[in-house]
């Protein structure tokens, strides 16, 4: 059911993007999100989309896999798009198409809806490239490294990262445990498949309680095992895996700088997103 290291949706292959420093990738994804929301006309939006396509090509993850990640929030995208279509309002005068009581559809609303849906779409695709090409362990390391400056304000960065990686490591173990408990309760006549919502919710209790008890027992064992292996917090600790910033990350950095600059330039010189309305309405 669960494959490998690969909890989440990691797609194991070798590629340019896979080999990038996880810290760089996290920073890039933030830059990309900024770029998506900066893009304010169709040219800029096209540039951002093109960038995503190139990134997917370089990651060697099949497009289908990347698209699948959108499926989960498709409903959210459609829902917000519809709300935006009917309830768009602005301080400026709108080019109305249709009006009924407080609901209206305008050219501006349609364009706004397209932008909103497309931005959400790109946002999810972009972040899923990150999770598809980076193992959870590398992500945790990256986050730890990026948060290191916060040690100055006494944030326990090392401990937080350790908690994250232990949580990831225990997911398959606890999954197995859950399956075992479900089987055990079924063998004793528990019914999880029929009944109303409340009945089914109640049926979960005899799974959760043993799971919780066993998780605490495991935590105690793990604590002992960590003590026995000389764990005593971040102080005096070395790290085996070192993250290294390579030429790949430098290229990535340059590309992202170019993207942001490009989006800003396109925004400034090619007008706002509503100018296109002029072609339809006089």
């Amino acid at each position: 059911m669960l494959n490998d290291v690969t909890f989440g949706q990691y797609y194991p292959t070798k590629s340019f993007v896979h080999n990038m420093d996880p810290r760089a990738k996290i920073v890039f994804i933030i830059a990309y999100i900024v770029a998506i929301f900066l893009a304010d006309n169709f040219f800029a939006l096209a540039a951002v989309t093109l960038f995503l396509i190139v990134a997917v090509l370089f990651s060697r993850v099949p497009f289908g896999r990347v698209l699948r990640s959108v499926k989960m929030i498709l409903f959210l995208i459609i829902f917000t798009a519809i709300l935006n279509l009917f309830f768009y309002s602005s301080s400026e005068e709108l080019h109305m198409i249709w009006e009924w009581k407080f609901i209206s559809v305008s050219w501006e609303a349609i364009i706004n809806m397209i932008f909103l849906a497309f931005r959400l779409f790109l946002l999810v695709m972009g972040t899923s490239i990150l999770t598809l090409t980076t193992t959870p362990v590398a992500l945790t390391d990256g986050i730890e490294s990026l948060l290191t400056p916060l040690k100055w304000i006494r944030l326990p960065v090392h401990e937080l990262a350790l908690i994250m990686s232990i949580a990831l490591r225990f997911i398959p173990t606890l999954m197995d445990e859950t399956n075992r408990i479900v089987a055990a309760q079924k063998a004793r006549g528990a019914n999880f498949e029929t009944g109303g919502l409340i009945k089914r919710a109640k049926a979960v209790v005899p799974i959760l309680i043993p799971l919780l008890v066993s998780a605490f027992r495991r935590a105690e064992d793990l604590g002992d095992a960590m003590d026995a292996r000389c764990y005593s917090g971040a102080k005096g600790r070395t790290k085996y895996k070192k993250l290294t910033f390579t030429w790949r990350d430098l290229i990535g950095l340059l590309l992202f700088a170019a993207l942001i600059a490009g989006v800003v330039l396109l925004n400034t010189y090619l007008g706002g997103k509503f100018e296109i309305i002029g072609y339809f309405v006089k």
Partner: protein
Amino acid sequence: MEAVTFENVKFIYREDDPAYAVNGVSLSIGEGQFVAVLGRNGSGKSTLAKLINALLTPTEGKVTVFGMDTADAKQTFEIRKSAGMVFQNPDNQTVASIVEDDVAFGPENIGVPREEIGKRIDFALDAVGMQAFRHSTPSRLSGGQKQRIAIAGVLAIMPKIMILDESTAMLDPKGRREVMDVIKKLNKDRGMTVILITHFMEEALEADRAIVMHRGEVVMDAAPEEVFSRSEELEAYNLTLPRAAYISKKLAEGGMPVKGAFNAEELAEEICASLQKI
């Protein structure tokens, strides 16, 4: 110097417990010994193990590891560096989701430089024969393999003593064999002091010395062959004989002239010898 000494050690988990978990134990274990500690559930054998590496400290008496007192909190770190411990459940002692990261955990904790950690991972994985699984995920390995990784995780700290607290109890026979082979090799080739807590009598036969615990006390302490030759005493402590020893005892009782045998080969030879006499 003795690797481990117990001086009249008593331990109680909670003040209102009716009995001591460990009650007046005195013993010493020399460096390089392979000691098996036997006893039924609740006999205090696991408590004994945890007293050695300062996971527990004695209520009364004194435990030392290479002369260091476990009650002295300043020494705890050094004690744990020299006395590593492998636990029962292989699933509950790995911290990372990749083998090499997990093996690196111990050396990282004691501040080994990065290049040296790489060498230690090589050494530890070689010693347990798991080099091929360096980049695998522990949750996908078999029980015996997971436990060998746990042993590698302890080895990477380079301790002089290895304590195994029922580390084979949750494994299938194949996994048990794998782990026992690794332990024996460490003891023979590297002179590692091994303290094996177990309730499998066959495993105790592979040790130099067997200590039997009963209700928190050490009731027998001798070579395994001697311990198993006192079968009535063992029965009183709810322990059984190794299978071969049990069969040879029954055969002798039935009138067949076999001497006590402890493993299948010895037993077979004894039976052949006695058949030739007829």
